[in-house]
């Protein structure tokens, strides 16, 4: 009896007193974990560096100095120099620009193609769904990096093509996720109601179903940005992604690796930047999932 009363009271309290919007509640829940605060701060720093690199960088990005090749950190060069005497801190800052944009745009491409595919397959079902899903099954059978390498062979290297290849590789992740969401959302009462009052298919899809699949899209995006940046670094390290003299982290590691016996700095420093970035996006993705996924609510 007591429990019933207290439950009604709490319920009444929320209904009357708090009109805080749902997204604000979600943000508050999100930042209850100090790790999420740190991870967000780190990512904001990366974004800040990416935007302000041309202003803040201590040296011109391609300035070479043969007398200062492969130096250890100093006041003049806080992270040391590479083989051509270029300032590593400067190159790292410019590299942030490329890596962050590759990550974001690749995920944008994946979502831009995958989400519509998933919506169409899930909403219309039938043979269309069957064909799309079988093709995606086959697509997923190709190991990520091998598929990306094959795509780069076809469309050629370079920043834009690397973004496209990494994005295309991640399309099935989104398509399958959104298809599953669409299948369950389209059977909910409000969709049936909209159908009953005569809403058209596009209206049902864009107005009623799409907004209800957005949360997993966001969670997946934060996890995919990290793996997209790792993929870019890996490709560039192999020498088949973005090419020197572009200062991406992968290129810097590759150039540094050839001279590792002389100086470890150029090979080691970009890895730290990569690790911190991916660690932060993974934390944020996991935390977002905890906060947004209703199934996990109350689990902790």
């Amino acid at each position, binding site marked *: 009896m007591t429990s019933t009363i207290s439950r009604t009271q709490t319920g009444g309290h929320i209904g009357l007193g708090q009109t805080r919007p749902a997204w604000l509640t979600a943000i508050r829940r999100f930042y209850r974990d100090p790790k999420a605060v740190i991870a967000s701060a780190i990512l904001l720093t990366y974004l800040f560096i990416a935007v302000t690199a041309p202003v803040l960088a201590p040296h011109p990005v391609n300035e070479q100095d043969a007398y200062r090749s492969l130096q250890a950190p100093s006041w003049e060069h806080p992270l040391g120099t590479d083989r051509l005497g270029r300032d590593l801190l400067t190159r790292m800052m410019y590299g942030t620009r490329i890596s962050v944009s590759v990550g974001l745009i690749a995920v944008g491409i994946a979502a831009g193609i995958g989400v519509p595919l998933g919506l169409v397959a899930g909403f219309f079902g039938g043979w269309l769904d069957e064909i799309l899903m079988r*093709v995606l099954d086959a697509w997923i*059978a*190709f190991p990520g*990096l*091998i598929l990306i*390498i*094959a795509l780069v*062979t076809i469309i050629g290297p370079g920043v834009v093509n690397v973004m496209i290849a990494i994005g295309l590789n991640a399309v099935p992740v989104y398509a399958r996720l959104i298809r599953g969401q669409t299948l369950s959302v389209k059977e909910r009462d409000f969709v049936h109601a909209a159908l009953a009052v005569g809403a058209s298919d596009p209206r049902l899809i864009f107005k009623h179903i799409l907004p209800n699949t957005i949360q997993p899209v966001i969670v997946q995006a934060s996890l995919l940005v990290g793996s997209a940046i790792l993929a870019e670094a890996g490709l560039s390290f192999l020498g088949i992604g973005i090419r020197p003299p572009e200062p991406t982290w992968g290129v810097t590691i590759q150039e540094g*690796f050839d001279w*590792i016996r002389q100086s470890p700095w150029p090979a080691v420093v970009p890895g730290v930047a990569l690790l911190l970035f991916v660690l932060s996006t993974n934390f944020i993705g996991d935390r977002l999932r905890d906060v947004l996924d209703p199934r996990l609510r109350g689990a902790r």
Partner: protein
Amino acid sequence: MWRFLVRRAVLTIPVLLLVSAITFFGTLLLPGDDLTTFYGAEDVDVTAEQLAALRHRYGLDRPAPIRYLDWLGDTLVGDFGTSLRAKEPVADLVRQKLGVTIWFASITLVANVGVGVALGIVAGTRPGGKFDVGATFLATWGVATPNFWVAILLILLFSLKLGWFPAAGWVSPLEDPLEAARHMALPVFALGLFGSASIMRQTRSSFVEVMTQDYIRTAQAKGVNQRNVVLRHAMRNAMIPVVTVSAFQVAGLVSGSVLIERVFAIPGIGRLAVDATVFRDYPVIQTIVLLSAVAIVAANFLADVLYAVIDPRIRYE
């Protein structure tokens, strides 16, 4: 069980056909065809008429679906075409390298499953304990660390500084097992870090879940010792998701070995793939793409068979 195996094997056929079709039609997106690529690379003067005649002779003027069937037939009997760069049959090139990568990837997979499952069980049967907190922390870092960078750090510390392990090279385990182990220690660690971290995370969470179930409490209540509860009662039910994650690892191992083979100068498939990409040697790329996809389809098939072994109910569905 046999009926299950046969039915499941038949189901892989359409996937394999689709995979082969994507591989074949994907290369048609390339500008030009075999001949223009070949003569373009050779810088030989050929007239348009000569090209047309050659095209007809090699059947390149036939419709794409026919050529696909032709190609599929050749592939099924192990004829993968000729490398544009080495001018050797692709099958010979691949055969030399495949053994190395298979050794490397399988040893890493076994190590991953062993380490991941063992750590996961210890962490998952005492959630919140010191070991659990430590192992979970390490696993979080393990999945975020780029494997080729770990490989570089390992070389810096264990090869260049301490001199315990060689920094590069490959020795076949059949020729000299001891020397092979010395050469493989660092690459296997670097390639396996991500895999064992994710297997550990999966094993941990499925043990945490299984250990709260009633039948486990019953077993504990009737006095079965903890070791048997974990290894006999909990194990079977906790292993299903672990098998799934381990099968996923095969894709990760194939991708990861490309990078690790580059760092340690291991003469495997990854090395071949990178060289082929640089030279746009697409018959080689095509073959590697196809073979790696087949390996993954096979891994998923094996995982399904393992499910049925672990959980007999699955056989009768």
